[in-house]
């Protein structure tokens, strides 16, 4: 039988080929075997690592979320600095601070000394491009003795302790810093968990680090998988494949058991940015008409499925001090009535942009389109991937943008956000706002050293900005964390910087 033997040969030839193709997949998953056993936590994170968990990239938050690395300071619930690797600090002058280090060891066994802190901070300052948290400050570190470090800034920096809590300024052991500028946190942090293996952009294995200065972690380890798709993350949690899944999309929230759904007010505010430098919204009356027409609270129960708060200003409930210090907005331009909007726009269409990266924004844009059309505007949407449109946005090619923005950036201080987004020389000034009163108010806040007064001045600046109608806040987002009922001690952090710490464990 010629055919049979030929078929047999073909089958025999194909078998090793198939086995060969399986091999890489299998060896890659070896780490996943036994996940969840012996009280290990399984976590599904949303944003896959872009630079092998380098603290100078997006990945920095992973290091703090999973308690791998620490900075000199950390932030407490209210956003004030608390001791971490530094047990205390004091300000010696306008630009000089002294930090006393605690007795701690890196995961590779070396001691945390003033030298190692200086080394880590020097590397952060020298990194190219500069980590965001150092973008507006020049930092010099000097070792005074084995456990004292002096930090000097070029100009006075009232928020330095807050800055040092940023995961980008995590202190890693000397071994972490390669000659070519790459930084590896694998086994070089000081936190209660140590990364033992990082497999590409899909998985990481963390084990408990027994020498942690703050005591032994309750969980023996963490198995991390990165699942970029929100539905897949929710599925993994529902299917029992993971214990913690961060950022459950609104569309999936209702499918999750109530006991596994945890809402956290987020420092993210979604707003409608109006382009003041040209086009329709150079006219303050039309801006006011748009502001009057847009109702962000309509989005809360629909697009966000109740997982958001109606906007109160630029800063929402996740910024605890904002509500009490809010300043009433006065002196706004009068809104052009709907009947006159048509003639004022002279037949021009309103180009409404938003991006697909956050699933809720395109839906929000469609709701806003209808609200704006009711006010007499003719609206045309442009919805794309963010990187596809960023240069157009900054060049002012749109009249309005539905925008989601983190209001407390790395420093945990709001001035940074206001300065980059709303001052005339701000680099992220999509509204193209050039208003002397706004500039002055933001400058005043930036120069203030006293925390309380700084917050007051920030809220004054907020009122100044809202007066111009260059930005219409819509909602304050809530992050939705999915946590299996048998997990205890997960940190629900509005800044999305912490998730798991020494106390997190399976029941």
């Amino acid at each position, binding site marked *: 039988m010629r*055919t049979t033997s030929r078929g047999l040969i073909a089958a025999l030839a194909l078998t090793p080929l198939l086995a060969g*193709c*399986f*091999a*890489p*997949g299998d060896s*890659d*998953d070896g780490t*996943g075997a036994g996940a969840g056993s012996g009280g290990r936590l399984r976590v599904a994170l949303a944003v896959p*690592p*872009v*630079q*092998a968990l380098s603290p100078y*990239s*997006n990945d920095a938050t992973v290091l703090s979320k999973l308690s791998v690395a620490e900075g000199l300071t950390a932030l407490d619930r209210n956003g004030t600095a608390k001791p971490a690797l530094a047990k205390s600090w004091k300000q010696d002058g306008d630009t000089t601070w002294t930090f006393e280090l605690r007795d701690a060891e890196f995961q590779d066994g070396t001691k945390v000394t003033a030298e190692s802190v200086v080394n880590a901070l020097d590397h952060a300052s020298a990194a*190219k*491009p500069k*980590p*965001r948290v150092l*973008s507006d400050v020049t930092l010099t570190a000097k070792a005074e003795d084995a456990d004292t470090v002096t930090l000097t800034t070029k100009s006075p920096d009232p928020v330095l302790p807050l800055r040092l809590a940023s995961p980008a300024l995590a202190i890693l052991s000397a071994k972490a810093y390669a000659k070519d*500028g790459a930084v590896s946190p694998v086994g070089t942090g000081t936190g209660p968990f140590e990364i033992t293996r990082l497999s*590409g*952009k*899909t998985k990481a294995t963390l084990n408990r680090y027994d020498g942690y200065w703050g005591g032994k972690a309750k969980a023996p380890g963490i198995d991390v*998988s990165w*699942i970029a*798709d929100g*539905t*897949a993350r929710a*599925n*993994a949690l*529902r*299917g*029992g*494949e993971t214990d913690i899944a961060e950022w459950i*999309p609104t*569309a*999936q929230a209702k*499918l999750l058991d109530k006991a596994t759904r945890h809402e956290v007010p987020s420092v993210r505010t979604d707003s409608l940015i109006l382009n003041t430098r040209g086009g329709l919204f150079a006219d303050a009356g039309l801006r006011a008409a748009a502001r009057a027409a847009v109702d962000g609270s309509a*989005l809360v129960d*629909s*697009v966000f499925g109740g997982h958001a708060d109606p906007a109160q200003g630029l800063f929402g409930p996740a910024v605890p001090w904002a509500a009490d210090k809010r300043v009433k907005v006065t002196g706004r331009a009068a809104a052009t009535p709907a009947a006159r909007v048509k003639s004022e726009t002279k037949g021009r269409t309103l180009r409404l942009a938003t991006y697909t990266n956050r699933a809720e924004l395109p*839906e929000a*844009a*469609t*709701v806003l*389109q*209808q609200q704006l059309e009711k006010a007499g505007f003719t609206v045309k*949407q*442009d*919805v*794309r991937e963010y*990187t*596809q449109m*960023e*240069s157009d946005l*900054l060049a002012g090619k749109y009249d309005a943008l539905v925008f989601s923005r983190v209001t407390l*950036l790395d420093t945990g201080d709001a001035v940074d956000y206001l300065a980059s987004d709303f001052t005339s020389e701000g*680099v*992220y000034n999509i509204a193209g706002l050039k208003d002397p009163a706004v500039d002055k108010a933001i400058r005043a806040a930036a120069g203030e050293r006293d925390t309380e007064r700084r917050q007051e001045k920030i809220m004054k600046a907020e009122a100044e900005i809202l007066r111009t109608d260059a930005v219409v806040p819509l909602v304050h987002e809530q992050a939705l964390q999915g946590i299996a009922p048998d997990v205890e001690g997960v940190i629900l952090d509005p800044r999305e910087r912490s998730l798991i710490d020494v106390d997190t464990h399976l029941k």
Partner: protein
Amino acid sequence: MSVAHTSARPLLWPTAAGRLLAGAALLGAVAALPWLSGADPARTVLRARSADQNPTPAELDAVRRQLGLDEGPLTHLAHWLRGLPGGDAGVSWVSGEPVMPQVATALSVSLTLMLGAFAVTVLVAGLLCARTVFLGSRRRLRRDRAGGTAAVLAALPKFLLASVLATVCGVWWGWFPSSGWEGPQSMVLPSLALGIPSGAMLGGLLDQALPAAFHEPWARTAYAVGLPPGHIARNALRRTLPGMLPQLLPTVVALVGGAVAVEKIFNIPGLGRLALDAAVAQDLPVLQTATLALVLLGVSAGVLIRALRHALLGRPLRDGALPALHRPPLTVPRSLRWITAACALALLALVTAGLLRDPLQVDTAARLLPPSLEHPLGTDALGRDLLARLGHGALRTAGVALAVTAVSALTGLLLGMAPRASAGPTEVVSTLPAVLAGLLIAGVTGPSVWGAACAVCVVGWSPYAAQTAALLEQERASGHIAASVSLGAGRLHLVRRHLLPAVVPPLVRNALLRLPTTVLVLASLGFLGLGEQPPTPEWGRLLSENQPYAELAPWVVLGPAAALVVLSVLAVTGSVQGRGKGA
């Protein structure tokens, strides 16, 4: 174009040159992407590394210097090419890690997945053809088949199938992991999601080709002599498969780079996602290496398939003694007319009822309402009436998809007639994901309504070119062409009376089976700003924008998916009816 067969060995160099040129052109275009699109790679790379980083001129300069962007595309391409022979494809612009291991891992994952999908494809295609094979090998094939089942399965959107499978088999029943890539058990669901529509497509084509083989004289003789049905079936398959094999390239092998949506849903670290992320971040070393891998894969699969075809057809093809396959006259079943009429009526009702309603009226109080008298198909997440959206989207969707399919099929037909020159481009293009073409087009034209159609046309012709080339090769080797030539037939006569009639019907069927895929691919380019912008209703967009709600409110995807299925069944059965009348 040489019409008559030659006994001399065909020249190999035009094919090789075609492959080399096509591959080089594609790689050149990819390497020049940032300079074509005018989007600053420093900006996209910075954004990919650190989402909240302020794009200050100083930071952008730092990135630019780090990557050496001022040197221009040629220097970069040359540098990358120099490293390749030593297995060094440079380092990723975003992560700074070596590219080769990343691409190799992703490629092996995607290849494994593709093999799984191939197994499912074979299974589904086999099941679809089982009836024809069974009856045909026993000479009981009387009635024609519409291929309705094939049309229904081929119209199922892969991403929808994937999310249904992940939810039902992964979450509800817990049979398989709902996501991840942890060994053979996590291959099952994605393979099914990818393989079922592909299998339906190929099975539908094969099912239509088989009756001709069963009606050839050899089959009659074999039956009369009393050879077992298995023998006849095997030989009939051997006779028809070679015409089908080239379809594997754009249907199955293309899944290596073109399964992005399914890779996302199942969280599979495959080549499609890697290439897409690299393309969006303009991470050229990764993108170029991934493209090169796809080009090499396409070409080697093409060569392999060609060798397999020639092995199956063997000597008759070389000697020009291949009898032509011609469909026997089969009676068209009466039920077919009813199916066609019902589909046409359903679509007509949908369009008329839909057009009377407002597709854009957002009502946030009426979101995700189940079907009722007021909203016969329910409402979507923004409270818009789904019937209205389907009805208003019907003409635009069907019109654009038909136009794109027609242009692609025609291009494919013309290129397929020059098989040696077009073999290279066909192989290169067939594994190229439409998203990549879209990105190149978006780079050149900027966001535009016609961009999506252009991008799909650019890559969409390859299945038809491959099919045309394969069918023509077989047709030219048949006796009646030689007879015509010896009777003094001119080229035009040959093309018009012999070649086109043999090629066009299978081509049309292929095109109609691919119609729903075209609708979905068109919509998948929306995030690049190509195609109609929201909130314009369009079927592909309806499916993708409602997909997250599929489990919470199944009607939001059932309506559009059913509409797509009805359209596909109507197209396929309608074409069978037309053929019945023509015959």
